[in-house]
């Protein structure tokens, strides 16, 4: 049923020329696109164009000889890809080594971040004295400037003067050799678990309290409630959280770069450092781009499979 409000413009429109209405309609249709335009432009400028340029660069022998004039770079075809994927040769072997180190680093870092984040968020659900203070303290690593925090860790990991050896009563190297990998994992977990804590805590807020009350009346204990209510209800949150943490950690450049400098020990040489060295230290931008494209492909495949699997599971549940 038309209302007075609906009538008014209709009456007015009846007397107005048709093109005006058409213009208004067009404007209404165009408005959302106009509002999206800045974001689309920025997305193009910041992500897509550089990504395409990177892809193009990977097919050229872009070294110091051609850096001044991109167009003079000799075409490499698939040579850059063949070179880094030849796992019998030095470059391929070291790239593969970095890949496996990065996989292990990601699994451990994401796993521990999730475990600590979830445990802390669940514990913080209960109201107790000092909860606010504790929550704030938990978020400190995430709030600190990354550079300052990681450089402080590098001081603490020094063999002779560092706090870590002092506290553990050991005399070990932490910034070189085998232990350097574990130092990297510790710093990464310390830095990222508050993010997991924050996200899981937000997810927990959305679980209705009545479910726990009903479960308690039915005699379910804390662990049963966690298994039957908390975990399933948190699944959508966890799916996003794990994907984001995976992508961040696999591409992590800042932590190893600040902790070890431009040349990380081979035991902690993540793939991002490897690509940086090829591109900016040894000036082989074509090769660096090829590695970046391969990394991007790998992350796309993993993300797509992950999203497909989680969607199928969600549909199956529905």
């Amino acid at each position, binding site marked *: 049923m038309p209302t007075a409000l609906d009538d008014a413009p209709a009456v007015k429109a009846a007397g107005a020329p048709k093109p005006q209405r058409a213009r208004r309609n067009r404007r209404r249709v165009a408005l959302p696109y106009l509002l999206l335009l800045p974001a689309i432009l920025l997305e193009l400028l910041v992500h897509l164009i550089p990504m395409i340029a990177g892809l193009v*660069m990977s097919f050229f022998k872009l070294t110091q000889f051609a850096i001044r004039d991109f167009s003079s770079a000799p075409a490499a075809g698939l040579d850059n890809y063949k070179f880094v994927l030849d796992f019998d040769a030095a470059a391929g072997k070291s790239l593969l080594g970095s890949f496996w180190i990065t996989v292990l680093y990601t699994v451990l870092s994401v796993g521990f971040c999730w475990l600590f984040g979830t445990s802390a968020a669940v514990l913080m659900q209960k109201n107790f004295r000092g909860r606010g203070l504790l929550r704030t303290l938990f978020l400190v690593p995430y709030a600190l400037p990354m550079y300052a925090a990681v450089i402080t860790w590098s001081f603490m990991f020094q063999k002779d003067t560092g706090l870590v050896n002092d506290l553990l009563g050991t005399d070990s190297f932490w910034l070189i050799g085998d232990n350097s990998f574990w130092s990297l994992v510790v710093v990464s977990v310390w830095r990222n678990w508050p993010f997991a804590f924050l996200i899981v805590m937000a997810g927990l807020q959305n679980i209705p309290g009545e479910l726990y009350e009903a479960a308690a009346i039915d005699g379910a204990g804390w662990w049963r409630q966690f298994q039957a209510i908390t975990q399933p209800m948190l699944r959508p949150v966890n799916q996003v959280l794990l994907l984001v943490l995976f992508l961040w950690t696999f591409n992590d450049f800042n932590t190893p770069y600040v902790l070890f400098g431009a040349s990380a020990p081979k035991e902690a040489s993540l793939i991002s450092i490897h690509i940086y060295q090829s591109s900016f230290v*040894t000036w082989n931008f074509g090769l660096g781009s090829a590695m970046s494209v391969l990394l991007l492909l790998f992350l796309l495949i993993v993300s797509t499979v992950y999203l497909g699997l989680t969607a199928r599971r969600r549909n199956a549940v529905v």
Partner: protein
Amino acid sequence: MRIGKIAPALVLALAAAATTACGGGDTSSSAPKELVYWASNQGTSLDNDKAVLQPELDKFEKASGIKVKLEVVPWTDLLNRILAATTSGKGPDVLNIGNTWSASLQATGAFLPFDDAALEKVGGKSRFLGPSLAATGASGQPPVGVPLYGQAYGLYYNKKLFSEAGITKPPATWEELVEDGKKLTKPDKGQWGLSLQAGQVTENSHHAAILGAQHGAQFFTAEGKPQLASDPSVAAVQQFVDLMQKDKIVNPANAEYADTAKSLKDLSDGKAAMFMNQASAGSFKNIGMDLANLGVAPIPLPATAPPNGRKVTSFVAGINMSVFKNTKNPDAALDFVKFMVSAPEQALLNKTYGSLPTVQDAYSDAAFQTEDVKVFQSVLANSAEPMPQVPQESQFETLIGTAMKGMFADVAAGKPVDGAKIRDQLNQADQQIAAGG
């Protein structure tokens, strides 16, 4: 870095550089000429550099009417800034480059070649120290700059520890150094014969070059093909690593020394008796060392020279001054270079920074007549060799230096580093350099 940011980061960095790099100076003929100068960080801080350089730039402006806009760039950023400027074509007019980058940067074609005419404009080729001039680009090609600040390696030693151990003079041969080092190593007291920046990639590569020359190594063929894994190179790296591994005169903790400060402090505090470094009396003074206890001598040579071994005790270190090819004011840029390499400026600036003049006529200044400076001066003039002047020099430094850093880490962890392992690592470096060439 997050998803897909690494490949685009290359382009982003370049694009950002196009907008942030300072453009060349004013070009209109009526307006007063203006140059942009990127100075490397030589002093104790960027501000200290500005304080040192600005009065000199003012002096130049007064004499020539050419204004110079100064930006001091930290070492960590300098190479990437230069690369970005090279790519965008929008760089400064005049800039400092580390002289080991000369041949690599020369290959980009972004710099004004200092041919005979350009060299004549800045005072003539014969004024410059030969070794310093040799480190300005590949031989047979016009240099890519002129030397501005000279540096060389020497062996610093703690006179007090030497005298306590009954050693009367610094070692002249490696055999003596190891022998003295053993006398001076007392791990229970936290005292070691020699301190090394074993976790520093560039330092390791410098020592590989020096010892490599002593063993007769040529890291590249005349055609520029890498041959790092030759017998003399392996022997040189083995000798260097053995200072910690076999001779045990270096604290294994030095494997994580990634900067000079710790080694300087070790020598100053009596925790190390010797340290090989570029001229750094000023730094020793800054950390409170009694300079009366500080001695310096050339880096040792082998008692018996290996076949084809060269009498090299340092690489030609230092800073060059280059002109960006895209400058709109090449004449003004050359005038400014001429001013900076003039004898009075050379004396003043090198005195302030503790480096060595690169022109003969500046050495008459009393500041360069001290015993320490004379040691470095003699090394630079008589027993210094430029790093390999090939376009792949930066790859060479990174790959050999990183490999040696890993070797020291292994030694510190008790894993043996033998000739086969060294050869394998150097072979890998050869393959990687060849791929980038």
